[in-house]
């Protein structure tokens, strides 16, 4: 019965039909950062497991995260976490039925982008400053 209902057409228009819009890019960014956070979770697990094994296992992880690629990954991971968190806050606001008008949506989108970058830079600058530039 269900087979007859499944027509040979897309269930909804594909993404490339639409002109890219800010809110649409933000929706995609929320999914990409969510996926990125999953990869970051695996990195966190690697770090925790290495600490639990011992100093030698930890030295490999430490060397990786101390390298340029490692630092870049950590920077991306923190930005991804912050962006996804702010995006999630927008969703929680929308869940209450607020902020769904056109202006609010645009403002919230820009606020998310800007504050995610500002907060990421701030966290790293403060982090490095507290460690005395080690």
């Amino acid at each position, binding site marked *: 019965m269900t087979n007859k209902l499944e027509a040979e057409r897309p269930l909804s228009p594909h993404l490339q039909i639409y002109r890219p819009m800010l809110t649409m890019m933000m929706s995609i960014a929320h999914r990409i950062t969510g996926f990125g956070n999953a990869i970051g*979770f695996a990195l*966190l697990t690697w770090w*925790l497991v290495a600490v639990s094994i011992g100093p030698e296992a930890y030295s490999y992880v430490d060397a990786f995260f*101390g390298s340029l690629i490692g630092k870049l990954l950590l920077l991306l991971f*923190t930005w991804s976490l912050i962006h996804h968190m702010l995006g999630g806050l927008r969703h*929680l606001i929308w869940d209450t039925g607020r902020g769904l008008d056109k202006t609010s949506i645009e403002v919230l989108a820009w606020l998310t982008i800007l504050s995610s970058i500002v907060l990421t830079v701030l*966290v790293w600058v403060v982090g490095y400053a*507290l*460690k005395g530039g*080690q």
Partner: protein
Amino acid sequence: MATPLKRVRGLGAAHSGTETFWRQRVTAIANIPLVIFLILSIVGHIGAPYSEVRAYLAHPVVAVLMLALIASAAIHMRIGLKEIIEDYVHGGCKIVAILAATFFAGAVGLASALALLKISLGS
């Protein structure tokens, strides 16, 4: 006469109601303070010596917050990955991908939790 209303009565067409929707919100709210804590923990310990990192993670407050984050994030991640897969992957691949996402969430969650317990209990 079958109207759409019939499908959404009780627990609805998926027979699970709004359970997943609500769980994603609960874990999202829990993740806010826990992820801030994680970011500060990461940035504060880059290049730190082994003994310092181990002592930090062994602190009961840090360990409990980390364990809470891992449980909440694993659940949140599993729901989110499943949602992405359901939108873009179809047919048999969908089942395989959802299974993989579930096992991934379970694996990283369990491994992280065991590592933290091992660090905390000092063995």
